[in-house]
């Protein structure tokens, strides 16, 4: 049972590309962390809640795209994988949105007021 490193070293172009990715990743994590703290900060700010909501949606979208596009390699992979994922993502987002619209605010009121 050898514990030696059995991986064969990669070719030069692969090495160079992966090294470039390293910097991309590090830059990305800085952006992601910043976005997270920004999220934390804005919620204590006295903004109107609608603005805050859109701010949160926007920031999490940025983070979402960052992880999917770079960490998950979609940027370097074929478009097909993006499409497969997008099908699920779009249908899921649409379903969530439709559900949110279908349920009204407030829920059942007490059955006292009867309008004719």
């Amino acid at each position, binding site marked *: 049972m050898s514990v030696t490193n059995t991986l064969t070293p990669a070719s030069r172009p692969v090495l160079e590309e992966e090294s470039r990715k390293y910097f991309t990743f590090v830059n990305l994590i800085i952006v992601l962390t910043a976005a997270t703290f920004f999220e934390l900060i804005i919620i204590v700010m006295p903004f109107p809640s609608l603005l805050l909501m859109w701010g949160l949606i926007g920031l999490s979208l940025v983070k979402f795209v960052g992880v999917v596009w770079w960490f998950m390699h979609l940027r370097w992979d074929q478009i097909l994988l993006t499409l497969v994922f997008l099908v699920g993502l779009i249908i899921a987002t649409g379903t969530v949105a439709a559900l949110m619209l279908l349920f009204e605010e407030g*829920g*059942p*009121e007490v*059955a006292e007021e*009867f*309008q*004719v």
Partner: protein
Amino acid sequence: MSDSNAKFRTLTLLVLLAGSVLLTGCLGPWDQKQSALDPRGPLAQDQYNTFMVTLYVTGFLFVTVGGTLLYTVWRFRSRKTDDPNTIPKQSHGHPVIELGLVLASAAMLVVIAVPTIRGIVYMENMPKDLHDDAIVINVTGLQWWWEFEYPEEGIVTANEMYIPAGRAVHLNLRADDVIHSFWVPKLAGKKDLIPGQENEMWMKADEPGYFYGQCAEFCGDSHAYMLFRVIAVPEEEYRAWIEKYQEGPAIDIADPGAWEPDDAHEELIGKGIDAFRRHCVSCHRVGDQGGLTGPNLSHFGSRTTLAAGWLDNNPENLHRWLAEPERVKPGNLMYYGLQGMTGLKDIEISDEEIEAMVAFLLALE
């Protein structure tokens, strides 16, 4: 493929066609007790009209597309005389034909979509001119019976709803246990009663009539037995009915000593009051006495049906209902008791007591 085979097929087809034409000829009448094809109110009429539009459109499509299919199959069947070595032209389709068919079917759908949208608005909003003299009824669906409350009149009844003919009714639909669905086909399409949700609908009977309704959402064991009636009566009769209910029941059960029997039958009724007070009053209410779990029985004797519209209201049926409720209506709470409470299964009721209660209940005119 032999020729005689082909002839046989054509023959079968013709017979089938002729058969179905004959069948449709002998169809009907369509005025069954719960028929949506016999509308007696403006909402049901609108829904019927829209149905007829869809029927005409799809009927037209069925005849044209189905006819084309039939013609194609007949026209291009392989014949014995065909040269087996020639193959038909390998054509692949035509964009203009495709586009034309798409547009044509879209046009057909518009014909249906217009009355649909109009019908939705009509159904969801009671027309303005009906508002003024509309009455309000709160409907509660329970396993397996209906409670009808007239909040403006302060009346509660069960399973049989009186409405004035010619006036609209606004219904507030509630359920506490499971989902039910309120449906009187001749007056209006159905709407569900859902726990935790407030639904409402409206309906109107144009003329006086006796309308059958039924729970249309599966609600457990005795779902099939959850019927009700809507009885549309002329205005004066409706007033009289309201007043009778407001006055209270014919027999006051609060003080059984006050009942002074004149003959044997009335003596029996007296026994019935006692038995009712012993066995039933914890769930059923007569006048201002009794529990609220079961149907209000204040004017039971004047109802046309019992056991939520399943049986006609007569002494034999009532006797059977009290003697073996679980046979009449499996799973019902009168027999099994509601969540830890006792039901008829836990107590002995003698035949005489049942006789007496039948006499008493039917006397509650």
